[in-house]
């Protein structure tokens, strides 16, 4: 009897590992593909073999990317846009989320509902009017336009996340601070904000990712190649009849690595930040 349950437990464990390994492989597969393509020498780009690493693996695509293409310009543009969006996202969301979590005021319910409603807007509903307005204002090729659009589109979700997290922090903490003579602002800034670090991290991550990975809006607003962000640049490798797979692969790996590392490093907070937000939301 005892050996039988032991055996069935072993089988169960083995099956669990098997399934997890299969899914892990499926998750890695496309990344391995991109890496593989990026390392292929020029004459093997259209190879039909499925080796782990290509024969004669080389970094020439990476070198070419920096030496012959505007990749550095795109990288700089994307970094600038994404960091600006992140900074404004964290500042605005941490403040507004706190307001919604702690105070009662006229229009609070309507405000929260309208934030939720923005999540249902199809992208085109904001993009099209913005596009027409930017044409009329002559701002079609500008960072200002795109930074504002990105900040605002990520903001509602970030405010909800922050609000949800603040809701889990006991109000008694500020009340104690207020009795000790703290102002509203210093109670918020010195006591609550540090406790909300996990949610701040999530907010920063989402703002950054949304700007770093956005193609659809950028493709319409940034038409001048000097202003291109990474997504438009990478798509351009694939745009013409002959796709430059090697360059595309190399660029993808470089673009992907920082966000993947960031994402995985923060994944511990991802679970708590997101679920607490949605439980209390």
């Amino acid at each position, binding site marked *: 009897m005892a050996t039988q349950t032991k055996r069935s437990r072993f089988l169960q464990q083995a099956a*669990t*590992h098997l*399934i*997890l390994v299969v*899914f*892990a492989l*499926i*998750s*890695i597969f*496309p*990344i391995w*593909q991109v890496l593989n393509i990026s390392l292929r020498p020029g004459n093997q780009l259209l*190879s*039909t073999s*499925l080796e782990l690493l290509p024969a004669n693996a080389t970094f020439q695509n990476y070198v070419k990317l920096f030496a012959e293409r505007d990749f550095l310009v795109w990288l700089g543009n994307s970094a600038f846009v994404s960091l600006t969006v992140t900074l404004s996202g964290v500042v*605005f969301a941490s*403040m*507004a989320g*706190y*307001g919604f979590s702690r*105070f009662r*005021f006229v229009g609070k319910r309507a405000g929260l509902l*309208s934030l939720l*409603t923005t*999540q*249902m*807007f*199809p*992208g*085109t*509903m*904001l*993009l*099209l*009017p*913005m596009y027409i*307005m930017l*044409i009329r204002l002559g701002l079609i090729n500008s960072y200002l336009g795109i930074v*504002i659009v990105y900040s*605002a*589109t990520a903001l509602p979700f970030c405010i909800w996340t922050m609000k949800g997290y603040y809701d889990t922090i006991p109000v008694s903490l500020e009340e104690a601070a207020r009795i000790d003579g703290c102002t*509203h602002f210093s109670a918020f800034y010195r006591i609550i904000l540090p406790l909300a670090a996990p949610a701040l991290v999530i907010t920063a991550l989402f703002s950054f990712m949304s700007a*770093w990975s956005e193609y*659809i809006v950028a493709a*319409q607003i940034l038409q001048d190649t000097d202003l291109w962000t990474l997504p438009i640049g*990478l798509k351009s490798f*694939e745009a013409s009849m002959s796709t430059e797979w090697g360059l595309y692969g190399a660029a993808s790996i470089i*673009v*992907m690595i920082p*966000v*993947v590392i960031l*994402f*995985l490093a923060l*994944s511990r907070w991802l*679970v*708590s930040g*997101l*679920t607490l937000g*949605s439980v209390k*939301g």
Partner: protein
Amino acid sequence: MNTDRTKSFIAFLVVPSFLLLAAVVFYPFFYNLMLAFGNMNLAKMRDWQFIGLRQFIKIFTEPSQPDFYEVFVRTIIWTVVNVTFHVTLGVFLALLLNQKIKGKAIYRTLLILPWAIPQYIVALTWRGMFNYEYGSINLILTKYLGMPAVEWLRSPTEAFLACIITNVWLGFPFMMVVALGALQSIPHELYEAAEIDGASWWKQFRNITIPLIRPVMIPAITLGIVWTFNNLNIVWLVSNGGEPSDKTHILVSFVYKAAFNFYSFSYAAALSLVIFLILFVFSMIFMRQSKATEAAY
């Protein structure tokens, strides 16, 4: 009720965000509303007029290329298939990860990867993998599984299936992470008590796990449905703008094409509004319905 000081603090907290949102979200929303009742296109940028409901009548009654109802049905299929897979795979993997097993952290990390990669890279990479001659999907099918190669990107059904496969791949980690968080918050004693009472695995799953992860999953699923319904990136980039011959469009990619390839601004604005209303009504009903069933537990 609030003192003046508190009032100005609240204003300090909330007003900046709402000014930003007013400029970039609410103002365009109303502008879009106005456009939807007009006849603006590239030729009539400045001298457009209000023409009432004519754009909406056009959407619902006039034949279009591609057909509105066909695209609508495809969008429903797209959303249902994707979200079903996201939730089942997500919850299933979360259940596996919630056991005591070796290498849990590594598995979790690897399984989150599809979520971590920028969507447009996912889309373009999968598009490459679906290439008929050189794509790895066909190579695996023909070399290792002995199946015939599939014309992924050149025939409508297969191209749409390619979009779905890509989107399923990229969407399950979100549900997995949410489900895992919910599972971890279930007190262990509940399962121990059920074990003592002799409840089977299935009974425990139905009567403990599902009801307890429900309050977390319902908002996540609602969000998932809305995001999937509106996911322009994947369809646009995997099928390269609705290819072949506009047979893979979902509603948002259809609007995007009408707006930025054909410059039918008012028509696109009206269609955007229709999409928004569909989602708005759906979310209200869905959330209310699930609140009602939640109360029944």
